[in-house]
């Protein structure tokens, strides 16, 4: 055991003679700064940009790109209070509200790329009426008897609480064609 300790001690002392603490810190510092600066190089930036596909919410000017507006493109068939005006977002309920697991699904056309996207309209439940940004757009919406495409239903029937707070318009994905009712 003593022999082992002695060998380790010799090795550590030899290492200490060869490398000062300052040298070590300087080298580590160079490495860290270099790694941080690498993405600033034009080549690295070019690679990142070419791989990036713009999100469908980007590059939409005015109200159609504003989640707090009823004219927001994803709100093409919303009937209720837009959750983005109630402390949430177009995709998430405000804190303290529960998303209804059941909702209705349709498509909206994105004005930026002219493509159709599948949108899931779900209600957020368990808090009193939000009362802000009350919207009523009905593109592709159908009467109560065609309930899978109806926005008059309180979808909180599928949540723990029946109390309606606001509605989200979640982007599910790109659609090959608009929903058949449009």
């Amino acid at each position, binding site marked *: 055991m003593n022999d082992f300790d002695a060998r380790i001690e010799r090795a550590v002392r030899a290492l200490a003679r060869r490398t000062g603490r300052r040298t070590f810190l300087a080298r580590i510092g160079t490495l860290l700064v270099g790694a941080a600066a690498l993405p600033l190089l034009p080549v690295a930036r070019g690679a990142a940009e070419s791989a990036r596909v713009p999100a469908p919410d980007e590059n939409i000017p005015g109200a159609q790109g504003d989640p707090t507006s009823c004219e927001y493109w994803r709100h093409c068939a919303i009937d209720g209070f837009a959750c983005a005006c109630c402390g949430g977002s177009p995709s998430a309920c405000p804190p303290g509200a529960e998303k209804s*697991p059941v909702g209705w*699904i*349709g498509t909206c056309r994105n004005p930026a790329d002219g493509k159709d996207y599948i949108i*899931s309209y779900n209600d957020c439940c368990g808090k009193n009426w939000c009362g802000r940004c009350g919207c009523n757009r009905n593109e592709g919406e159908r009467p109560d008897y065609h309930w*899978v495409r109806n926005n008059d239903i309180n979808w909180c029937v*599928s949540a723990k609480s029946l109390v309606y707070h606001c509605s989200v318009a979640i982007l599910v994905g790109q659609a*090959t064609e608009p929903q058949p009712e449009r």
Partner: protein
Amino acid sequence: MRRARAFAVMCATIVLAAAAADAVPGPAEDYLLHCSGCHQQNGAGVTDLVPPLSGLAPFLATPEGRAYLVRVPGVAQAALDDERLATLLNWVLSEMSGKTPDPAYDAREVNALRADPLRDALAARKAALAH
């Protein structure tokens, strides 16, 4: 020159036909738009409210059960033509319940079953599973 023009027209027609063929959504997309609002994107359903699609295999054990899967209102009334509905049903069964229908549903069978709507879906469900 005339031949070259004819060749160009032919190529354009093929490209356009291929583009048109690509424009038809597949069953996974049809599932999202026509089924997932209730059954959820993964087919898990909602406890005590919407049945999970993983439990469909027993329906295929009898002719009544097989017919029920088409005649149930959510399927029969989906805004899809017979061909796409048959494709969607086959896809849901193999992907979510692990049971590929044999024979597979086709447009003709779906058309005939849709023409015979269920008067009492719950009773039909119970009867289909009782055999």
